[in-house]
Structures are given as structure tokens and as C-alpha cells.
């Protein structure tokens, strides 16, 4: 373990350079595609489209779009707390349930503050390179509403809603991404170490990758089709999960003791709220209350249902019984896979994406994990990274020009995916290694035995 990580530490430290070299001229080579690709802002831009946030008079704000984006933001926050918290919490052993909920909740808080401080600015304003945004919006400077003056700032990525709403909407994405990682290292990581990891990871990994894909001047913004974060959120989190599962090692007693989920009722509640909230995630990524949002909404729902059934039937066939955990996992796999595709594909295509995501993730969360032997406890890698890759590539293959006005290709998709995989995996290993060498990553064996609820938080479930 420590050898492996030392190696990776080295290679990761030198990672930005080769990456830059290899893909340096992508943006230009893909320029023909670029002109027709719009990632999140579906409406055709006027003559000289703004390239940074700006002030408008309040009558430029569309109250319908704003209503939907306020709602979407609430929905996406609900995905993390309580959605994801419960989805994960139900799968751990009873002695670790509160610590698992705590991870999602604390991440929500710490990311929110960092997002206000620097995150939003680093991700969603133009920077001096295509790799990271600037600091012009640090501490929400310039994100304003002027009552008497009748003015309000808007993001150049969403010109019909107040910038506050766009910044908050994006905050909820920045919250759920690190929270997803927790699935991989569940039941064994120190809370303090987790807090450090997530804070650094947000700045060092999430903000750059979001900038690459979504900010118009970002590295892959012109070539990558990622409507709602298949790459930025799911691949990014999933591969960081794998890194953490490798760095932390297996849970004590894995394969020997029973580690059955303690309360799948919570997991079903969580999966359900994820599904409901994901409408905000995907349809909200249209940043408008329009036909494209509607289409994103519809394909999200259909793909999810298809994936849930495909996981369920695969399990039924191979293991003899359809399980509640299976159908819920399949639904999440479908939600993940349709995420990048949601504003780009037709209902027909969404069925294909869903069915494939269900089957592929079933095998990655069962066979692949067992074969390779890492302890991706709640399958953040197996479902989110693998499902995200399935979705990202299929988006390239199935994108509908009619629906999106955009074109794409599996190859172009692969580039953004690879860059994300490499960067997130490498940086995660580095950050984890540094934390391990300083305050330590893992609880003691006795704390793990007693359960993290009592040992880390001094609380327990009756």
C-alpha cells in the first residue's frame, strides 16, 4: 500500500504537465464541434456574449426561470442532506450510522463556506488559464442585488436568473460531489482527516474540473458534453473514492464478519430523495424553465427507471432474488449515467443509457470489486465513476442535434473523462498521503471495533 502510494504520489506531482502537453491543442482541433456545442446555456447567445458575470436591471430576470432554479437548488441540497446521507447511512453497520450522516452534513457546511470564499469564483469566473478560474468573485464580491437601484448581478452562464441563485445552485453540486466520495471510505476514516481532505479536494480538484468543463473559457468547455455533471460530479467523485479506498485499506473483518446494511429503509428513503432531487440536478442544469429542462427531466426519469429494472433483473437472474438494495442501486446508477446526457439525448436513447448503466454498474459493484479486492465500501467508485463513464461516453454516441443543437463524439468525451480521471485520482492520492503523514487517515482498530459513532462523536443510536 505505502509503496504504491509513494509511487503515485510522485507521478501525480508531475501530472499537470503531461496532461497539458497531451491535450494542449484539443480545443482548437475540436473547434468545428465547439461552435455548435452549448453545454448548459441552451439559448443562442446574442452578438457579443458576456464572458464574465455582469449587472442587469431587475426586469431582465425571468421570474419563471428563477422560480425553477430556486426550487432546483433546494432539491439538489435535499439530495445530499438528507438524501445521500440516508442512502449511505442505511448501508453501514448500526454502530457507524451517525458518523456516516455526519460526513454528509459536515461536508455540506464546510463546502458552503469555501464556495462562498473562493470556490464559486475559481470554478465559474474566467481565469488567466483554461485550467482554473480567477478570484474576482471571491467572498461573493460583486454578487449583488440593489434594491433602490433596481439592479442585480447575473452570471454569464445564466443570464435570466440572479447570480445569487446560480452561485447557490452550483454550490449544491460542489456539496454533493465530495459527499459522494464518502461511500468509498465508509466506516473507517477519521473525521478530522475527512474534513481536511474534503476542504483541500474541493479547491484542488472540484473547482478546476468544474471550470474545465463548464466555464466557457475552460479547458474542455467547448468540446465536452456534460450537461449536469457526469464527469464533473460523478467520475470525479468516484475515482477519488477509489483513491481513498486504496489509501485507507480494507475495513477490519471484511469478508469474515457480516457487514450487512443495518437499515435499508433509510437507503430506500435516500434513493427516493436522490431520484426526486435529481430533477433539480438535471433539469435545473438547463438553468431555465423551458422545453430543454422538460426534456432533461423526462429522460432523467426514464433512464432511471430503466436502470433500476435492469439492475434488478440482472440480479434476479444471477442471484435468484430481486433485492431492494439492488433496485435502489440501479436507480442511482441510472441517475448517474443520464446526468451528462440529460439535455442532449432523446427518450429512446435514455432507455439505452439506463439499461446499460444498470447492467454495467451491477457487475462493477459486485464482480469487479471482488476481483480487484479494494474495499469500496458503498460503491462510490463502482456506481458513480463507472456509471459516470458509461454515461459520458454514451452521451457522445447518442447526442441529438435536434434536441441540443450540439454534436459530440465518444472520443471527445473520452478526453475530458481521462483528464478528470487522472487529475482527480492523482491529486486525491497526494492529498490523502499528506494527511496520512500528518494527522493520520484512519481510526484505531479499537475505535473501528467500537464503532465510529461512539468513538468519534460520543453518540449512539438506541
Amino acid at each position, binding site marked *: 500500500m505505502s509503496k504504491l502510494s509513494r509511487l503515485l504520489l510522485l507521478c501525480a506531482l508531475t501530472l499537470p504537465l503531461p496532461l497539458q502537453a497531451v491535450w494542449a491543442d484539443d480545443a482548437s482541433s475540436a473547434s468545428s464541434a465547439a461552435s455548435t456545442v452549448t453545454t448548459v446555456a441552451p439559448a443562442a447567445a446574442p452578438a457579443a456574449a458576456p464572458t464574465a458575470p455582469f449587472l442587469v436591471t431587475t426586469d431582465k430576470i425571468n421570474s419563471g426561470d428563477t422560480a425553477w432554479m430556486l426550487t432546483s437548488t433546494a432539491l439538489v441540497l435535499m439530495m445530499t442532506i438528507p438524501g445521500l446521507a440516508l442512502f449511505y447511512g442505511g*448501508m453501514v453497520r448500526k454502530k457507524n450510522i451517525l458518523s456516516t450522516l455526519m460526513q454528509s452534513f459536515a461536508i455540506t457546511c464546510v463546502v458552503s463556506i469555501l464556495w462562498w470564499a473562493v470556490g464559486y469564483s475559481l470554478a465559474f469566473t474566467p481565469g488567466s488559464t483554461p485550467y482554473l478560474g480567477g478570484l474576482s468573485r471571491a467572498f461573493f464580491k460583486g454578487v449583488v442585488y440593489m434594491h433602490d437601484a433596481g439592479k442585480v448581478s447575473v452570471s454569464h452562464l445564466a443570464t435570466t436568473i440572479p447570480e445569487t441563485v446560480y452561485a447557490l445552485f452550483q454550490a449544491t453540486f460542489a456539496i454533493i460531489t465530495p459527499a459522494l466520495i464518502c461511500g468509498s471510505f465508509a466506516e473507517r476514516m477519521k473525521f478530522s482527516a475527512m474534513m481536511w481532505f474534503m476542504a483541500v479536494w474541493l479547491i484542488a480538484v472540484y473547482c478546476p474540473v468544474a471550470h474545465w468543463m463548464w466555464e466557457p473559457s475552460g479547458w474542455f468547455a467547448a468540446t465536452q458534453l456534460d450537461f449536469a455533471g457526469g464527469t464533473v460530479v460523478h467520475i470525479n467523485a468516484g475515482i477519488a473514492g477509489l483513491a481513498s479506498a486504496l489509501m485507507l485499506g480494507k475495513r477490519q473483518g471484511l469478508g469474515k464478519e*457480516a*457487514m*450487512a*446494511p443495518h437499515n435499508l429503509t433509510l437507503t430506500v428513503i435516500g434513493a427516493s430523495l436522490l431520484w426526486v432531487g435529481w430533477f433539480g440536478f438535471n433539469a435545473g442544469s438547463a438553468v431555465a424553465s423551458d422545453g430543454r429542462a422538460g426534456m432533461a427531466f423526462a429522460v432523467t426519469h426514464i433512464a432511471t427507471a430503466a436502470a433500476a429494472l435492469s439492475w434488478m433483473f440482472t440480479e434476479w437472474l444471477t*442471484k435468484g*432474488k430481486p*433485492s431492494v*438494495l*439492488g433496485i435502489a*442501486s440501479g436507480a442511482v446508477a441510472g441517475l448517474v449515467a443520464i446526468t451528462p446526457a440529460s439535455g442532449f439525448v432523446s427518450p429512446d436513447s435514455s432507455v439505452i443509457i439506463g439499461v446499460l448503466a444498470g447492467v454495467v454498474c451491477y457487475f462493477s*459493484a*459486485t*464482480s469487479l*470489486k*471482488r476481483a480487484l479486492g479494494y474495499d469500496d465500501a458503498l*460503491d462510490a467508485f463502482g456506481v458513480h465513476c463507472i456509471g459516470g463513464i458509461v454515461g459520458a461516453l454514451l452521451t457522445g454516441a447518442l447526442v441529438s442535434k435536434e434536441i441540443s443543437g450540439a454534436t459530440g463524439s465518444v472520443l471527445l468525451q473520452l478526453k475530458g473523462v481521462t483528464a478528470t480521471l487522472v487529475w482527480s485520482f492523482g491529486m486525491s492520492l497526494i492529498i490523502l498521503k499528506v494527511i496520512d503523514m500528518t494527522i493520520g487517515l484512519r481510526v484505531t482498530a479499537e475505535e473501528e471495533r467500537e464503532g465510529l459513532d461512539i468513538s468519534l462523536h460520543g453518540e449512539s443510536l438506541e
Partner: protein
Amino acid sequence: MKLITAIIKPFKLDDVRKAVSEVGVQGVTVTEVRGFGRQRGHTEIYRGAEYVVEFVPKTKIEIAVADTLADQVIEAITKAAQTGKVGDGKIFVFDLAQVVRIRTGERDASAI
């Protein structure tokens, strides 16, 4: 005095309680337990990981009785708890050295 302990199938509890009441038992203490024996457990599968749950839910009942009543109670339990299938359970009988009723401080026979 004897303490009669029976490990039975949970859904038989009500029948057993009634049966022993009929032969004159006035008190019973019940505990949820898990049993391992000839009766097999079941398998659960979570994302491909199979867990063989070897223990079956059982109910333990404890009844303190005067020596004279013991055989009747044992018979009543045996009859009420029987399904004829593996896993019906066991009856264990112990000698009781002493019994006290906490409320009154009464001892032995009158305490039961």
C-alpha cells in the same frame, strides 16, 4: 422448585403462554434470542456479498414452578410449541435454590 426454560419458535409464544396458564402458571419471563441448531438459517445478499445468517430467531421463556407442577408444565409447553418440524426447540429444567418476590419479600413457594 424448578426453573423451566424453553426455547421455542417465536410465533408459538401466545399458544405456549395460554397453555401454561391453563395448568396454573401465573408468571412467565420472555426473552428474544437467536438459535443455532439443526434448523438452517438463510442467506442474504447485498450487492453480491452473501451473508449466511446461521442463527434463527427464537423465543426463550422462563417459568419458575413448584416441583409438583413441573411435569405438567413441561408437557403443556411441549404440546403447545410442537409443529413437528426441525427447530421446534428445547426445554431445559434447572433446580431453583431460592425464589424471592421483591414486592413483598416472600420466599420460595409463596413467591412464585
